[in-house]
């Protein structure tokens, strides 16, 4: 069964690329249903920081080899600390994506066993990928402030 027949609210942006916008709690069963209908390849989970709307957009992307279709399930959660259910039980690799998003955006995923630090070991500041984090300023007053080795 193609994605469109399954979910009437799916819009087809162009041939082979479908976008579904839903709420936070319906994502789990959508992915499950797609997974059973030969959408077995979970492409990636990404996060977009809409700072003006004050929302994070989480996009779960799946691909079906049979129908050659790319489905994007996108949900919006507000930026200040709203947590999301972990989809780890459906696809194991989601755990790493969620871990990265947790480190880079600060989204908390309930049910993910190891949300510990991933790339930035011992990063004390706020998650760097958020729009309100000014990298240039950080670099200017951290890396360049580290003193040269003075040879007296």
């Amino acid at each position, binding site marked *: 069964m193609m994605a469109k027949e399954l979910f009437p609210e799916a819009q087809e942006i162009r041939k082979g690329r479908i976008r579904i916008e839903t709420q936070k709690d319906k994502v789990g069963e959508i992915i499950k249903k797609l997974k059973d209908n030969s959408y077995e390849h979970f492409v990636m989970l990404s996060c977009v920081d809409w700072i003006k709307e004050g929302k994070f957009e989480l996009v779960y992307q799946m691909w079906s080899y049979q129908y050659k279709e790319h489905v994007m399930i996108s949900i919006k959660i507000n930026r200040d600390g709203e947590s999301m259910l972990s989809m780890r039980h459906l696809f194991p690799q989601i755990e790493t994506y969620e871990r990265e998003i947790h480190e880079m955006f600060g989204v908390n995923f309930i049910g993910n066993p190891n949300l510990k630090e991933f*790339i*930035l070991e011992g*990063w*004390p500041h706020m998650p760097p990928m958020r729009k309100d984090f000014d990298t240039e300023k950080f*670099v200017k007053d951290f890396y360049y402030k580290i*003193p040269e080795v003075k040879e007296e």
Partner: protein
Amino acid sequence: MNHENWSKLARIMSKRSLWMIHFCTGCGAMEMPPVMTSRYDMERFGMHAMATPRQADVFLVTGYLAVKTLKRVVQVYEQMRDPKYVIGFGSCTINGGMYWDSYNTIKDLSKYIPVDVYIAGCMPRPEAIMDSFLKLFDMIDKGEAIGWQKYHKYYDQYKRNQRMAFSYRLDEVKDIKEDDKE
């Protein structure tokens, strides 16, 4: 033959057999194969690629260094035995290169470990690398390649910079000064 020119002779002889270990952190590793194989063949200078820092003399840092990788680079550098030399490849080690504004990469390698020779270029070509080897040999002859002595002399400064980088904070260094006795 008194001690002074004996060590001079030793230095001259040892420069003809510098064993190399390289930490391919970034895209510089691609430049090493042509240097080792038939076209340029660094073995002409007696340089041989070694697998462990214990056996190595010269340390090639090729490419940008994330803070996490810096921790490993410092560990390898400290495991090498004196006299040891460091060659920094490409602009990333000089001033962060195209990652100048990244929150995660260090900007200047010489703040953390003493670097003897820098090779400019966003990944220098093999000829540049061979030239840097010759430059290193001259410095060793003239006794200028004293990076490893600098590391001992200013050990606390280097350690302070390293801890600052690892903890991503400038102020953090003050309270744990006393435990750092070389």
